[in-house]
């Protein structure tokens, strides 16, 4: 690894502690990935925003960094936090939590983040040309960037993405290089051939966030490296792509998927048996007291679909919908949010369903969701049982 003079100086601490730490992190990753150089990036996306995840030590670290002269050198977005910043006090958020959360937000703002708290940053800002180098943490967004948007990023950590934001560079390795963007294992959807289980003869329609989430979860558990999907169909909705990426990033280390028919690689099957196994592993309740939509956060397309299916209906139980404030603004202008709110749902903006004190403070024992990623984390973080159901089933069964 050959460093430029300015990079050597930064490493020695000449430009302050923040840049020194940032370059230390980049150098460790360069060693890890046998990189020869760094590459300038167009966009950094930093995770580690909810106080529930980074806690006091993350908070202290960010305070130290933001109190220095350091600033983000490139366009930088950050992940959702743990509450709706504007109306947290209406939503049962403990004030000690809110106080610390607001501090974290102020540190990121001081460093120069774009005013968004979202895990779907590609929804709110214009995406650079395919092939552009970026550095995104938040596994679901990174996988989405590589696989759907044709951008190039490794699955950055909260810290490595922060280092990238502060330096405007990332390590030129792994998924930044063509040769590493080829699949090494394939997963074949094979529902037709798996009808040998008579108890499961009901032919499954493979569509919607739940199906794609289960596929992603299974793929994440059983594969490493770039994974190729076969038989998924040529077009998926953004909701399906997002669910796939979210679940794929929840377990395992894969940073990208492709679709195709590469020869000479191992092929695993994903059929009814694998589908049911994965579903039963995560879903441990028939129903739930609270409906949660938006893990990863809802896109404008999903809010449109939700508003269509909720027209004239009322939820029979509490429902919370997570999206960014930017997407909410668009949904308000187009009239989607008012329909959803009239059906009795509550929007929580700029927050993450998995890492918010909201779910715990609502005192529920079980949650219904169509998100595999959400079910995985809510179970662990909030200690609730989760019922995983198809989006349409959730609406038809609870309105």
């Amino acid at each position, binding site marked *: 690894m050959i460093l430029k003079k300015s990079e050597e100086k930064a490493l020695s601490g000449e430009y302050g502690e923040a840049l020194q730490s940032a370059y230390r992190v980049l150098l460790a990753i360069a060693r*890890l990935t046998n990189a020869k150089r760094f590459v300038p990036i167009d966009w950094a996306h930093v995770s*580690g925003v909810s106080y529930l995840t980074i*806690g006091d030590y*993350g908070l202290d670290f960010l305070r130290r960094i933001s109190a220095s002269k350091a600033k983000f050198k490139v366009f930088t977005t950050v992940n959702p936090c743990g509450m709706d910043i504007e109306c947290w006090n209406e939503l049962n958020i403990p004030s000690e939590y809110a106080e610390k959360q607001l501090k974290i937000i102020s540190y990121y703002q001081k460093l120069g983040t774009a005013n968004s708290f979202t895990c779907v940053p590609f929804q709110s800002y214009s995406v650079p040309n395919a092939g552009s180098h970026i550095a995104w943490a938040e596994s679901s967004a990174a996988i989405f960037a590589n696989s759907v948007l044709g951008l190039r990023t490794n699955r*950055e950590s909260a810290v490595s993405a922060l280092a990238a934001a502060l330096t405007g560079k990332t390590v030129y390795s792994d998924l930044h290089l063509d040769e590493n963007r080829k699949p090494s294992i394939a997963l074949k959807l094979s529902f037709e051939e798996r009808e040998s289980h008579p108890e499961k003869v009901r032919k499954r329609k493979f569509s919607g966030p739940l199906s794609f989430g289960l596929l992603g979860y299974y793929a994440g558990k059983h594969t490493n490296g770039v994974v190729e999907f076969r038989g998924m169909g040529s077009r998926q909705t953004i909701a399906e792509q997002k669910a796939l990426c979210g679940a794929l990033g929840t377990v395992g280390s894969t940073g990208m998927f492709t679709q195709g028919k590469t020869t000479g690689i191992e092929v695993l099957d994903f059929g009814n048996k694998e589908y049911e196994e994965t579903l039963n592993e995560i879903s441990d309740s028939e129903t739930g007291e609270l409906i949660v939509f938006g893990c990863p956060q809802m896109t404008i397309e999903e809010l449109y679909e939700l508003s269509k299916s909720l027209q004239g209906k009322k939820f029979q139980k509490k429902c919370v919908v997570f999206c960014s404030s930017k997407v909410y603004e668009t949904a308000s202008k187009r009239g989607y949010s008012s329909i959803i709110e009239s059906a009795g749902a509550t929007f929580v903006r700029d927050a993450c369903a998995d890492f918010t004190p909201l779910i715990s403070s609502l005192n529920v024992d079980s949650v219904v969701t169509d998100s595999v990623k959400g079910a995985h984390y809510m179970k662990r973080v909030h200690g609730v049982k989760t019922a995983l159901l198809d989006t349409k089933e959730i609406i038809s069964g609870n309105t």
Partner: protein
Amino acid sequence: MPPEKSNSKTDIIEARCIVESAKKISGPVLFSSFPIAFLQGVDPEKGTVSDKKSDIYGEEFRGKILIFPNAIGSSVGAYVIYRMVKNRTAPLAMIARTADIITASGCALAGIPLYDVSEQYFYALEKFDKITIEGKTGIIRRFGSRNP
């Protein structure tokens, strides 16, 4: 990967250095056969694996050299590593079969030395009770006496 050598008589393993240490590191081995999810799979207050299915569930990292295949899960895991250092519950060093971006960035920030080794030597390390690591080169030696 640089070439790695092992000599079964003297039990020397050459690991790759990801985050170096200025000093030599000596300590008992804590070997996990399972990948570690730092976020939600590790309790940074105690410095232990909190997943009951783990073979090192509940065993303290503190004062030991943590050896594990790789990290899994959320990228926020890097702050958990940093958090353990602040809590004084962190291991002396980490050796991974495959060091990853979460572990590397967390260790770089927290100042925990990190190395990785090839598969063959990874499983050889399971049989070591105590080891020393040359901080900059990553040369690992069996430490103290242990009857064969």
